[in-house]
């Protein structure tokens, strides 16, 4: 092998045809069209959001790292109704699609507005998964880089949030499975970084809020820590500003739209109970 490997064709033979590549019929990534088709999440699981690629058996089951959750949620979904008030149905009045179309045509200001609008969503999706610092940055970058390449291709630009959520989730799962950094990741550090990196009192001082409020938020953070991983994931996602739409949540967590409402209710009730006492009684996991 020559040393000039960056500047020309490689000099040794490539593997035999067939060793590169694989079953090309297996779509790995959610496309915009996928996201759109899956978002309505028909009762009964036909619209199961996690099944962008089908499982290894090609059965279309949502087996991508959250198998147990997904199975459970699918049962939930049977009884659940389509929630109303899904913001993706139009309260933004086509503003989002206008931004996507403008950015696709080369308008950098529109791109910046898109980043501003959807950064909290993408950030929450990443935070809802447990990633190392380095993987956090990779997933973040890849999600936005991908969007730059797909701006023109997006069939339903109004749903770009769902597309971003789906892309960030798939990249987060990929990173979780194949992280190139082998350092084990501490839950607390990644799921709820504020526990290590900030104290509410400090932040409150900066924002000049009352000590009592700081104390309540600290207890809230501690109670959040005691929730199940499933609840922490959903709630962390709901913590985005502005709150994500149900189809964005569905894409972000691989959770049928119909099970989001009931799960949210259960998790918030758990959180309230955890705040109400029982400090430290059942540490999570």
């Amino acid at each position, binding site marked *: 092998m020559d040393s000039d490997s960056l500047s020309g*064709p490689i000099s040794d033979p490539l593997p035999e045809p067939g060793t590169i*590549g694989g079953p090309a019929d297996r779509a790995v990534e959610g496309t915009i069209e996928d996201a759109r088709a899956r978002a309505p999440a028909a009762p009964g699981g036909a619209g199961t959001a996690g099944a962008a690629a089908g499982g*290894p058996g090609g059965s279309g089951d949502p087996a991508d790292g959250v198998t147990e959750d997904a199975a459970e949620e699918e049962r939930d979904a049977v009884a659940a109704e389509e929630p109303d008030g899904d913001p993706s149905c139009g309260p933004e009045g086509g503003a989002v699609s206008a931004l996507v179309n403008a950015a*696709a045509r080369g308008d950098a200001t529109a791109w910046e507005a898109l980043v501003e609008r959807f950064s909290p969503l993408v950030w929450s999706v990443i935070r809802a998964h447990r990633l190392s610092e380095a993987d956090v940055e990779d997933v973040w970058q*890849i999600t936005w880089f991908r969007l730059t390449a797909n701006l023109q291709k997006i069939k339903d630009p109004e749903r770009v949030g769902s597309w971003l959520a789906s892309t960030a989730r798939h990249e987060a799962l990929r990173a979780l499975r194949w992280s190139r950094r082998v350092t084990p990741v501490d839950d607390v550090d990644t799921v709820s970084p504020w526990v290590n990196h900030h104290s509410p009192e400090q932040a409150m001082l900066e924002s000049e809020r009352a000590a009592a409020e700081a104390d309540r938020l600290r207890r809230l953070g501690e109670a959040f820590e005691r929730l199940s991983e499933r609840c922490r994931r959903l709630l962390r996602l709901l*913590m985005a500003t502005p709150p994500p739409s149900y189809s964005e949540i569905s894409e972000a967590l691989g959770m049928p739209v119909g099970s989001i409402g009931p799960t949210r209710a259960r998790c918030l009730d758990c959180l309230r109970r955890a705040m109400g006492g029982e400090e430290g009684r059942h540490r999570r996991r």
Partner: protein
Amino acid sequence: MSDDRSGLEEELRDLARLLDPVPEHLVRQAVSAYAWHTVDAEPAELTFDSFAPEQAALVRGPRGPRLLTFEAPTLTVEIEITECGDTRRLTGRISPPRRAGIEVRRPDRRLHVETDELGRFGCDGLSAGPLGLRCSTAEQTVVTDWVAI
């Protein structure tokens, strides 16, 4: 859903806004990602990744090379990533085979290689992190989805 749970959810949102906001440097990165946008290029979608979570059950034991396929309507890019210590080696092939200029895109730089007449290309010494490819043939320009290698 206008119950008292909404109040609790709003408090959680306050907590996140206060203590886990989107880091400023990441927002800046996302804004500058627009530099990768090109109006004329055709996207090639990632259609196969041997390291995808969906493939994980099929891949056990020591990791072999990672195989990725990107497809645009008229051009397919297949690459193989091999880990060599801290760096990665990329070999690839475009089909139908032809000569093309390949821009290897990293968040902070671009490398240029050429394919041979069989459409093969490669480069060594890549660091870990996001990677995308831009392939320019006489007829068209294709950009692949980004992946972390």
